[in-house]
């Protein structure tokens, strides 16, 4: 099944785009998707702990399973002020 990823701030810069479609199998969790798309990033674990995840614009825990056509957002904190 397909889901849509939505990138904010840091992730938008990292992936050079603000959204992307990915193909996942059933029972895939938010966490699985994160590490799948960031597998090359040496800081993936640290980033993971400091990223808010939202499915269809609501906060979710990283163990949440995804459904077809979900929109999963990676929301990092913004640093300055």
């Amino acid at each position, binding site marked *: 099944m397909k889901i849509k990823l939505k990138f904010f701030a840091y992730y938008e810069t990292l992936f050079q785009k603000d959204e992307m479609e990915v193909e996942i199998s059933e029972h895939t969790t938010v966490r699985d998707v994160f590490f799948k798309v960031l597998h090359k990033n040496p800081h993936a674990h640290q980033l993971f702990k400091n990223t*808010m995840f939202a499915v269809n614009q609501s906060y979710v825990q990283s163990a949440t399973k995804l459904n077809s056509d979900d929109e999963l957002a990676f929301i990092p904190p913004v640093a300055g002020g």
Partner: protein
Amino acid sequence: MPFKRYAIQMKLSEIGKAGQEKLSLAKVAMIGVGGLGAPLALNLAAAGIGHLVLVDGDQVSLENLHRQVLFTEEDIGKAKVVAAKTHLSKRNSEIKISAYAEFLSFQNISQLLSEVDLILDCTDNFHARFLINQYCVEQKKVFVYASVDQWRGQVALFTPKGPCLACLFSHVKDGLFQDCSQSGVLGVTASVVSNLQGQVALHWLLFQKDFSALFLYDAKKLQILSYKIQKQKYCEVCGEGVKERSDEVIFKSWNEVSRLMQDAPDQNILIDLRDAPTDALKGALHIPMVKILNGATAFDKNKTYILYCEKRIKSPFVREVLRKQGVAHVYVLQERVDQ
């Protein structure tokens, strides 16, 4: 006529005289009078917030002027809070303004913030934000978080009912998400974000409105998105504490610790972090958190330390501080020790 200067905002049926009175009775602290705080202070003073408490240890510099529109060229080199107070008082002499030319720290936070109704996080770093967050959870205070970097900003209200900032972002280290090559910002972007923060603050003061949302502003798309947020059961600050780290040794109860201490009393040290406990667990050393953070206590890097406090808020925080100092074996007792 009292409140004459506020006549136009009082014309809003939701505000009226009753709303204006609420604002004039409010005591609001602004932590940071920079990119976010300076433009927002202008509007909050003008709106008639009865008492503004300004906290910032920084001085005005030439590079501030493009976005910190409260300041003038004559202010360069002056303490921001002092310059801010001068300008704000000229714009509204009916309100009270307190200026503290110091950075927020563990030592001064309760003295500065214990009397305020609402705290505005206008800081530029996560160290200060987590300090505010922890204090607010502990003291059941409300704060509005705001941050801005390049073309993006975030705003959220955090109340005692939760979630807290650490529910969303658990251990942010400054620099992790920064694109160090080009961190800049336009004055208008910082102003939009700070005024969005002001809007959330006024909604709280006037209507006790809690959006339970993180607002994301994108200045390139001219878009504000709202994401529903929720309390995390295992939040280290407002929840039940660490769970996700499988490598973490956690002592769930006093019995477990007691056994360990009987086996090797010299190796394992139990520390009571509370300010003034009337009782202590058997064998515990009483060292208030402030003393540790001041660096007044020496720790042996080869020993094991187990920390406890009244609400498990201080312990995880102190654990991280000690680990940064190279004390590897620091653990938290999960059982609550109520006063």
